[in-house]
């Protein structure tokens, strides 16, 4: 497994391939391979969990399973039933609306805050920690807190009414047309400070010389940001999008804690849909079909990404 220094392969991980590899002068085979031996069992275990369970789920989606697994193959009937379920369309629309709004708003707020903090504000470290705190909380706590704040009778609506604006209405949490946006609000609160930290790190790594040159040329700060700094930050944008998208897919706990998928099933997401059909409605086959569709969609996004990463390195 130990490789001689290979030809130069440019790409994101080129540092790795450029690393001098060692032929170990001392030690036995066992010792040389110790790190791999430690990792192997866990590696095998995750292979089993990830692919074994995916295979099982895909198989179940082709069976008439109801409350319990039934291993008799029946074809694509469960998929037909899935696509005939209005609730499924609500779930995928919600995922799309939530994910895009969440990513765009978090990044916009993140970059504005990063520019604000980049101006050498006093006690910057402290402010930065406060901005980042929400990210260290779990989604269920976030959901709990915002449920209170967004509750029409208890939170903001009530507060503003008490302040004298009797007609003020802010009932998104219980309004099935707007409830999905309350999830966006809570998730943005949790993650925008995080996006800020990533962008701030990117801003700080911009080369001094470029900025000095821009200043000499008399560029305004607005112009410097839009035409010099932001283009340089492109890799940061990419990694921020990937991390935020990953959070959005995992938003299950937030939905459960904040809206419970309601009112009705207005804020259902594919994850809560699967959960409801597998555990509450005893429609294991439909749940498995929806899981398989989600897995295929995510794979369809990941595989081209991996492929382009690999092609870049010429393998």
């Amino acid at each position: 497994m130990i490789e001689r220094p290979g030809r130069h392969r440019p790409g994101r991980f080129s540092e790795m391939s450029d690393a001098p590899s060692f032929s170990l002068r001392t030690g036995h085979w066992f010792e040389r391979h110790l790190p791999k031996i430690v990792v192997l069992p866990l590696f095998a275990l995750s292979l089993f969990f990830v692919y074994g369970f995916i295979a099982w789920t895909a198989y179940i989606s082709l069976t008439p399973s109801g409350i319990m697994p039934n291993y008799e193959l029946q074809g694509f009937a469960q998929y037909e039933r899935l696509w005939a379920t209005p609730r499924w369309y609500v779930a995928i629309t919600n995922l799309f609306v939530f994910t895009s709004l969440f990513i765009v708003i978090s990044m916009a707020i993140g970059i504005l805050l990063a520019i604000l903090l980049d101006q050498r504000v006093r006690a910057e470290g402290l402010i930065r920690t406060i901005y980042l705190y929400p990210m260290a909380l779990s989604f269920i706590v976030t959901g709990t807190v915002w449920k209170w704040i967004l509750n029409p009778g208890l939170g903001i609506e009530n507060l503003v009414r008490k302040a004298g604006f009797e007609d003020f209405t802010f009932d998104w949490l219980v309004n099935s047309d707007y409830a999905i946006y309350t999830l966006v609000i809570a998730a943005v609160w949790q993650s925008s400070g995080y996006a800020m930290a990533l962008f701030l790190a990117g801003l700080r790594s911009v080369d001094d010389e470029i900025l000095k040159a821009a200043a000499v040329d008399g560029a305004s700060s607005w112009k410097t940001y839009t035409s010099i700094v932001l283009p340089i930050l492109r890799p940061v944008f990419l990694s921020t999008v990937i991390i935020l998208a990953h959070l959005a897919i995992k938003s299950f706990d937030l939905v459960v804690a904040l809206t419970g998928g309601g009112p009705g099933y207005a804020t259902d997401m594919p994850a809560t849909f699967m959960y409801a059909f597998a555990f509450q409605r005893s429609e294991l086959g439909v749940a498995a079909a929806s899981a398989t569709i989600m897995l295929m969609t995510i794979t369809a996004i990941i595989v081209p990404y991996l492929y382009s990463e690999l092609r870049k390195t010429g393998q």
Partner: protein
Amino acid sequence: MAIVAKSSKFGKYGRPTLAWIVGLLFFFPIFWMVLTSFKTDADAVKPEHLIWFTPTLENYLNMTENYDYWRFAKNSVITAVMATLFTLFVGIPAAYAMAFNPSRATKDVLMWMLSTKMLPAAAVLYPMTFLTKSVGLFDTKFLIVMVLSLINLPIVIWMLFTYFKEIPKDIIEAGKMDGVNTWGEIKEILIPLAWGGIASTALLCFIFCWNEAYWTVRLTTTDAATLSKLIEGNRAPEGLFFGRLSAVSAAAVGPIVVLGWFCQKQLVQGLTFGAVK
């Protein structure tokens, strides 16, 4: 270097003020939760007691006496600490091998590991519940530690790798010349050199384990139930028991908030995967 705008009134007073106002907005929900935790359930839903109320410890006393807070807290501490230690125990050699003995497959393995983090957990919940119940592992601390370790391992290895690859290879090679074995190299050279990075990674892993709710809520009933399960169990239909729920939530996030305060540098570094040094 920062682009410092020309000094103006706004630059001098406006920006810091704005930064602090935003900071307060970010902190407000957490403050609100703590405030509500000192109200009785009845006061928590009364608008007239929004700010002026008689603080009470009733929720906290109730929580420790009737809801067995300490048992849940103990489980949270045990599972999060064990999972963090175990993940580091496996992750450090793995990241070491990737950083210093890279093979052709290293990058692919790294990408593959990260891609597994993208899969929706809901898809494997049913088979997982089914399997663990049939082999008798359901609701055991062992299972929770294993699950927490497996889901955090990719991120831990990735983070450790980004720290390790910045260590000059010569130092490790010098150790080899001196005849130190692999284990010795990791223990005597690598760990002391990468201590800061390892600490940030450990803190992040601990926070993720502590916050994990999806699996810990659904794969436990009593014996291995963590604080996430306690919060989940106290969620009631609309508007009920907000004081109690706030107390439980505050007591569950309290340790993280305090820990984060004392380890601000590691928290920021860890949460941004080492992007902020």
